[in-house]
C-alpha cells in the first residue's frame, strides 16, 4: 500500500523501516560485478551454522548428557525417533560441510593474500571462526560418547588436571577436574554457548567483508537480483553435495570406532578424531608433554594469525606465481598430514607426520617472507623488502 501519493508512511514502515532497509542493503545495494562463486562462502557458512543450530536443538530433545547414557540416547534417536536418523545425520554431515567450507575459505584467503591491507580484520575474524569451530567440533565429537570420543575427553580432562598454574585453572574451570559422570553435561553447555558465539562471529565476518571491501570500480550492479541469483545457485550446489553425503556416505571422515559404545575398561589402539580435527591434532601430539602439545597447537594457529606480518609484499600487489604454487603445496601438505595421522601408526607414518608438520611451519615462517618479498620472475634468494612493480 506504500504508494508515493500517501504523505505518511504506513504504520509498520514508520516504526521499523523494513522496505528502506531492503532498498538500501539488498535491491539497491551497489556491488562489484563478476564476483566468483566462492565469494559466497561466508554466506553459506552462516547458513550451515543456522542449520546446525536448528538440527542440534532437535537432537537436544532426546540427547542424555551423561557418561554411559549419551551413546545409547543417540542410538535411540537413530532407531526409535521418527526421522531421528535423518536429523542426526543432518547434524554430523552438516559439520563436515561446514568445516569443508571454512577450510576452503582459509585456503582462498591465503592463496589470494586477502589478509593484506584492510583485509586483515576479515582474516582475523575468519581465523577466530575457525578456532571456535574446532572447539565446537571437538565438543560435538566428544558428546557422541563413542569409543574414541570417550577417551579423547578423558585424555583431555586428565591432561588438564595435570597442568598447573593458570592453564590448570582454566582446564579445571572447563572440565571440573578429571572426567566423570557429570562432565558431558558441562561439555553440552560449552558446545551450545560456543556455537551461539560462532553465529555472532560469522555474522560479524559478513558485515566486515562488506565494510572493508574496496570501492566499486566499474558501473555497479544491484545486489538483488544479480547476486541473490548467484547465492541461490551456490546454495543449491552446496545442498546437492550435502544431500549426497547425508544419504549415501553418512559417516564420511569419522573414525569407525566412534560408532561403538565406549568401554571404560578398554582404550582403543588408534584414537583418531574426525577428519576436520586431524591436522591440528597431529600438530598437538607431536610434542610428548601436555603443555608442549598445547603450545604446539597454539603455534600452529598463531602462524596463521601472523600472516599479515609474515607476508612482506605491499597491500594491493598481486601475489607471485611461486607464492601461489607454494600455497597449493601447503594445501596438499595439510591434507597429507590428515591422511598420515589417520593411518595406523607405523614407523613410516611417524616420519611422514613430522615431515608434513615441519613443512607447515617452514611455509609460514620461512617460505612466505622469502617469496612474498620477491617480484615475479626474480630469483627467490633476495630477502630485501619488495621493490615490486606496483610499489610507489
Amino acid at each position, binding site marked *: 500500500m506504500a504508494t508515493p501519493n500517501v504523505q505518511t508512511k504506513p504504520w509498520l514502515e514508520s516504526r521499523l523501516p523494513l522496505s528502506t532497509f531492503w532498498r538500501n542493503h539488498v535491491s539497491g545495494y551497489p556491488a562489484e560485478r563478476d564476483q566468483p562463486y566462492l565469494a559466497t562462502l561466508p554466506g553459506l557458512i552462516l547458513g550451515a551454522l543456522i542449520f546446525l543450530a536448528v538440527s542440534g536443538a532437535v537432537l537436544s530433545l532426546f540427547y542424555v548428557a551423561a557418561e554411559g547414557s549419551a551413546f545409547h540416547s543417540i542410538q535411540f534417536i537413530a*532407531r526409535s525417533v521418527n526421522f531421528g536418523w535423518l536429523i542426526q545425520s543432518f547434524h554430523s554431515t552438516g559439520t563436515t560441510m561446514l568445516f569443508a567450507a571454512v577450510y576452503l575459505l582459509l585456503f582462498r584467503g591465503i592463496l589470494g593474500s586477502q589478509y593484506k591491507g584492510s583485509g586483515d580484520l576479515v582474516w582475523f575474524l575468519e581465523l577466530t571462526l575457525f578456532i571456535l569451530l574446532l572447539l565446537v567440533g571437538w565438543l560435538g565429537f566428544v558428546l557422541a560418547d563413542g569409543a574414541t570420543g570417550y577417551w579423547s575427553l578423558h585424555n583431555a580432562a586428565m591432561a588438564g588436571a595435570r597442568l598447573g598454574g593458570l592453564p590448570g585453572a582454566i582446564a579445571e574451570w572447563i572440565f571440573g577436574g578429571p572426567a566423570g559422570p557429570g562432565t558431558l553435561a558441562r561439555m553440552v553447555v560449552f558446545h551450545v554457548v560456543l556455537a551461539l558465539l560462532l553465529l555472532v562471529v560469522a555474522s560479524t565476518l559478513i558485515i566486515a567483508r562488506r565494510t572493508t571491501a574496496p570501492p566499486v570500480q566499474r558501473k555497479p550492479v544491484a545486489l538483488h537480483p544479480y547476486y541473490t541469483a548467484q547465492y541461490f*545457485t551456490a546454495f543449491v550446489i552446496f545442498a546437492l553435495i550435502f544431500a549426497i553425503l547425508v544419504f549415501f556416505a553418512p559417516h564420511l571422515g569419522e573414525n569407525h570406532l566412534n560408532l561403538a559404545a565406549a568401554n571404560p575398561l578398554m582404550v582403543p589402539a588408534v584414537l583418531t578424531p574426525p577428519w576436520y580435527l586431524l591436522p591440528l591434532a597431529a600438530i598437538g601430539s607431536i610434542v610428548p608433554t601436555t603443555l608442549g602439545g598445547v603450545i604446539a597447537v597454539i603455534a600452529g594457529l598463531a602462524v596463521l594469525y601472523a600472516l599479515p606480518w609474515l607476508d612482506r609484499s605491499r597491500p594491493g600487489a598481486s601475489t607471485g606465481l611461486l607464492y601461489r604454487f607454494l600455497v597449493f603445496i601447503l594445501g596438499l601438505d595439510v591434507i597429507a598430514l590428515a591422511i598420515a595421522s589417520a593411518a595406523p601408526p607405523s614407523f613410516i607414518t611417524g616420519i611422514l607426520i613430522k615431515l608434513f608438520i615441519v613443512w607447515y611451519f617452514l611455509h609460514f615462517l620461512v617460505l612466505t617472507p622469502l617469496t612474498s618479498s620477491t617480484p615475479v620472475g626474480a630469483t627467490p634468494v633476495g630477502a630485501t623488502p619488495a621493490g615490486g612493480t606496483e610499489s610507489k
Partner: protein
Amino acid sequence: MRRTLIATAALAITLLAPNARAQDTLNQPHWQSQGAFGSYDKAALQRGFLVYQTVCASCHAAGELHYRDLAGLGFDTAQVAAIAANVKLADGPATPDDIFKNPYPDPAAAAAAFGGAIPPDLSTIVSARPHGTRYVYDLLTGYAAAPSDMTLMPSHYYNIAFPGMQIAMPPALKDNQVTYADGTKATAAQEASDVAAFLTWAADPNLDARKEIGLRATLFLIFLTILAIATKRKIWRESV
C-alpha cells in the same frame, strides 16, 4: 570306512575352505545392501536373524535393539510377538518392547565365561569396523589350524580375519546348525553371510529409507541446480 571318509572330507573343508575363500578374489561374497542403490534382502535378514538367535545370542548382547524393531525384517506383529514370547527373561517371557536379551547378568560374568574376554555388543559392530559386513563374514569363516610356528594364548583360536590372528571366540558356525524355513542350504558360509546381512541391518536399520529419500532428494537437487544456473546466467547476461 565311508563315514570316516566323509568326516575327513568335512574336516578338510572346515580347515581349508576359509583359506580358499580368503584367496578367492573372483567370487567375492556379495550382499544386496552394498552399493549406492542396494537395499536389504529381507529373506537373507530373516535367515540371518535365525542364525543370530540360535547361535550368536547365546553369548552376545545387542543392547540397542528391541524385539519390535524386527518388524523391519518383514515380520508381522504376531510373528514379532511370538519371537519375543520365546525368549525367557528373568521376570517371564519377553515382550516386543523389551531390549534383546543380554545372555550375561553383568560384564564380569561374561568375562569369567571366556577367560577375561567379553563378547562385544553386536548392535553396531558392522558400522564400528571398517568394511563391517565383510569383516563379520570373514571373521566367522576365518578359523583355521594355527601355523606350526605360532603359539596360541590359552583358550584362543587361530582366525585369519581377526587383528592379531587369535581370538577368544570359539568357531561358532558349522554346516546345518540351523534349518532355514525357506529351504536354503545351511552351509557354514551361507550362515555367515546371512548373519552378516542381519548385523548390517542391526547397525543401520534405516538404510532402505535413507537411500530411497536420498535418490529423490539428489534428483530434485540436480534439477534445481540446472534451473538455478540457467537463471543466474540469464540475470547476469541481461544486467549490462
